[in-house]
């Protein structure tokens, strides 16, 4: 294979991979939780869902792995942001508000894309929260969710 052809193939492969990434929900980052109710877990989310599917402005971050049961939800409200962390193995989410967090930086904004009429969101989250009796969660992520 000539150098030019190899370069063209590589460029095409990169373009396809980049396009694939650009047109799919994606999340990168890492969260760690520990505590009596939350248990101890780490999650590196790789997928997310726009909160507007469920009527809130925010994002639902998780791993696309059916063996996992961790989840972190970012909610942006006028009263201030809020983060929900799943207690693994249950249908319960622990609520963390600003007064329980040393760091709670949330940026969620529409990115101009709608899928099936539901606006997509992009943004970032950085948290360091502790709720006595439940546990603490810390970490950060960047996401684009459809």
């Amino acid at each position, binding site marked *: 294979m000539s150098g030019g052809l190899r370069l063209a193939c590589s460029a095409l*492969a990169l373009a396809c991979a980049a396009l694939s990434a650009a047109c799919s929900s994606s999340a990168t980052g890492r969260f760690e939780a520990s505590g009596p109710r939350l248990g101890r877990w780490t999650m590196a989310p790789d997928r997310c869902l726009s909160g507007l599917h469920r*009527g809130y402005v*925010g994002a639902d971050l998780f791993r696309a792995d059916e063996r996992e049961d961790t*989840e972190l939800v970012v909610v942006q*409200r006028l009263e201030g942001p809020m983060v929900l962390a799943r207690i693994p193995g249950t249908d*319960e989410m622990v609520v963390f508000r600003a007064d329980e967090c040393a760091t709670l930086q949330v940026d969620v904004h529409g990115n101009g894309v709608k899928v099936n009429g539901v606006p997509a969101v992009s943004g970032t989250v950085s948290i360091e929260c502790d709720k006595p009796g439940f546990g603490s969660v810390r970490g950060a992520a960047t996401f684009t969710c459809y």
Partner: protein
Amino acid sequence: MRALAAAAAAALACAGLCARAWAGDASAERTDHAVSRVHVVLIDGSELQGELVERVPGDHLTLQLATGEIRRLPWASIASSREVGGATETLPPLVTPESTPLTPLTSSPPLGAPRAGTDVIRGWPRPDRRPPTFSGEHYVLGVGGGVGSPTGYVGALAGYEPAPWCELQLGAGLGGRFGYAVAATGRLQAVAFGAMRFGLGVGLSTNYAPSPSLAGAPKQTQFLNLDFNQDYALGRSAFLRLTSGVAFLLNPGGFEGLCPKDATSGLSSCAFVAPFPADARAAASAADHGRTVVMPYFGLELLWMSS
């Protein structure tokens, strides 16, 4: 004139008040989460009662029944709802998605509506963690057909996808006018929303015709195939592929001089065959005139993916 100005001012003021009132209604619609137990009548006549988990006007209502089951009711399926012990409420009309503002909700969000003092929300549904159709590594098996396509009218296909944007495929089929076919194709693709894919394919194919349609034509022909494909997921384990492309004949020399020439004009007797569907006569004609033998093709494939 003064009366006209006064009337206009009054109209503007009225419009402003109406707009404010409308905005107030819209806000109330989103912030009305005080109801905890509701009784819902569906349009098919069935009735449900449970704890309100989520209320997204125009979209759906989610209830937690006494059994603990979480039931999500599409807005369009609800005839009426009322707070248990309260007045019957006819739900507001369906809100179009375009009217959903991308602004923070002014009150508690739905799904358990974390009210002041709430430490835990129960009944939060788990996300769908299944990978999208076009993701990860897969083996692919299927059938395909087409006009002029590498495997011809009907063929069987097998492939391997180390990643959703890359595929290697082998196929064998009845072929077309050049005889039975085997083909190998490599594809680079872009995935859109996990359920659509489009890309480019490059491949080689060989046809074998025990008795060529044109006397003297080679029994074996080779093609370089370039095509564009669109894939559409059918559920989570199958997809439909549409291809359109062109095939370049790689051994045109075998077709040279096969067409008798007119003594006076010198033109080949194959010169006026239709360019499509392509066959040995078209190849012979193109070869005689020193042209690259290029043939368009279209294909349709139905493929299944390993989990």
